[in-house]
């Protein structure tokens, strides 16, 4: 039986939830507010929460001074590309781990996850040199490969968890029905795991979109995505908070919209199998 909550309790819980949400969202909110302030108002002390003179000037400046569409397009290609490539590798990998596990499958999963614990700086120089030597430096393909490899353990782990929820008998039935391994994955496993695959894909696009360390260090101009676009407003021209905020807002807006429209899918995917 569900516990009946008193109205007061409900109110308090709601207030607490909103407070936590506000704390988490505050930096984003502050950034958006700042992007509409003048530079003077942006650095004013004490901080002006609501500025008197709102302006769109920052956006105009940012738009005119840089090639936003190119950065945006690079971000799309890199995040979607690395995600699709990652899924193409992770789906068969997770399939084999979930349905034909070996003695060392669990160890393998842990080992893959442990690579995420390695500080990125540790491999910065080798990767930088390798990329330069083989001509992947400042190319979209290079970043697609790098980000795919960075996020592959997470993709495999998530898919493995979703695949474990699918009854093995259904795949055996497909095998009896004459499905090849390829057909089994394409016609049976993938459609059944679609909510899980979709949320893995969304999460990975978000991770790749927001990735800054590798995208900034492995690109200069040609393949630079929106993270480099934001960085370009902080480093060379000193600290222009309002313009930096405008650039950041423009960079996160597409992913914010994507996240907003797919939040139901994301939550369903992330809690998939948690309760029956």
């Amino acid at each position, binding site marked *: 039986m569900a516990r009946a909550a008193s109205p007061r309790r409900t109110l308090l819980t709601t207030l607490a939830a909103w407070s936590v949400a506000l704390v988490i969202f505050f930096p984003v909110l502050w950034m958006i507010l700042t992007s509409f302030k003048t530079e003077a108002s942006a650095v004013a002390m004490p901080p002006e929460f609501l500025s008197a003179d709102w302006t769109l000037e920052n956006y105009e400046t940012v738009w005119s001074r840089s090639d936003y569409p190119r950065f945006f397009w690079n971000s799309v290609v890199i995040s979607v590309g690395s995600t699709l490539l990652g899924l193409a590798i992770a789906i068969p990998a997770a399939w084999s781990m979930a349905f034909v596990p070996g003695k060392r499958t669990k160890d393998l999963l842990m080992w893959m996850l442990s690579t995420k614990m390695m500080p990125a700086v540790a491999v910065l120089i080798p990767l930088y040199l390798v990329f330069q030597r083989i001509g992947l430096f400042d190319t979209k393909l290079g970043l697609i490969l790098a980000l795919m490899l960075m996020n592959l353990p997470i993709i495999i782990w998530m898919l493995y968890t979703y695949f474990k929820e699918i*009854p093995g*008998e*259904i795949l*055996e*039935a*497909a*095998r*009896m*029905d*004459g*499905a*090849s391994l390829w*057909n089994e994955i394409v*016609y*049976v496993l993938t*459609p*059944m795991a*679609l909510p899980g695959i979709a949320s893995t894909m969304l999460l990975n696009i978000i991770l790749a979109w927001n990735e800054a360390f590798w995208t900034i260090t492995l690109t200069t101009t040609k393949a630079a995505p929106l993270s480099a676009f934001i960085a370009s407003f902080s480093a060379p021209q000193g600290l222009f908070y309002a313009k930096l905020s405008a650039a950041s807002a423009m960079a996160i807006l597409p992913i914010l919209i994507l996240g907003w429209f797919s939040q139901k899918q994301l939550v369903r995917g992330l809690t998939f199998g948690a309760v029956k």
Partner: protein
Amino acid sequence: MGKIQLSQVRKSFGDVDVIPGIDLAIEDGEFVVFVGPSGCGKSTLLRLIAGLEDTTSGTIAIDGKDATHLPPAKRGLAMVFQSYALYPHMTVRKNIAFPLKMAGMSDAEQAARVERAAKVLNLDSYLDRRPGQLSGGQRQRVAIGRAIVREPSAFLFDEPLSNLDAALRVGMRQEITELHQSLKTTMIYVTHDQVEAMTMADKIVVLNAGRVEQVGSPLELYHSPRNLFVAGFIGSPKMNFLEGAEAARHNAATVGVRPEHIDIVDGGPWQGTVGLTEHLGSDTFLKVTLDTGETVNVRASGEVGLHHGDRITLAPQAGKIHRFGADGKALA
């Protein structure tokens, strides 16, 4: 065709021998039931035949050809699973057509075969539904439909009725038997329910701890069980076993008498007191504690006016006593 021959088929998981070595011949068109208690290896044996498990050693021949190392799809067999194993994202039509699609059959031929199967199984009006919108019995029919469209050389059923309620189970049991009569295709059926085995099978294979205890027709097993295990497993209620003086009187270590082969008569050789009584109308089941201390179950036809605590005398029917040696094997 659907002749299946197992020769010294062995399966071990690590150090555990699940099936220590089985020889078995299944003839074309036979309805064979593998029966035994849980963990006896009957499902494993079925999965070995299906190709879903690899044999550790031995050979499996289907229609005279060695199929031991063939993948499941190449064996020409169709399987119906305990959990139905339908594809939840596909409609009934697509579920049934799936094996045909995998075989590369034309759309027109697929549609014709699905229609035919749906008609046989009364699924016509459900073709556009998803499995989630069907009852247990309907889902089971879809699973059977998916098996029959392929026109396999043999059907494998892995406890297909255990998820259904009692009433539906009896109905589906008859449907599967009728299906076998009309298709005349080999069927191998796994169950732990000896009533299913007795009512459906042409031939029963009784398994225990991965070994074949006996193979025979239902009535052969009922009338001439080869050992104590088969005698106790086949028949409901279970056969009564008596040891000691009564067994010695028949020159055996154990004697067995089925509850329906014990008569309640005045002056019978066994005296006892009625314990539990179960009145089913058509039959009455009595649990009687003999004066020797042993307990026997008695099945009396119709209503008998006996109750808890009544004193009665019983007599086993002549020629219905099964004798077993100290090794558990039946004595001639």
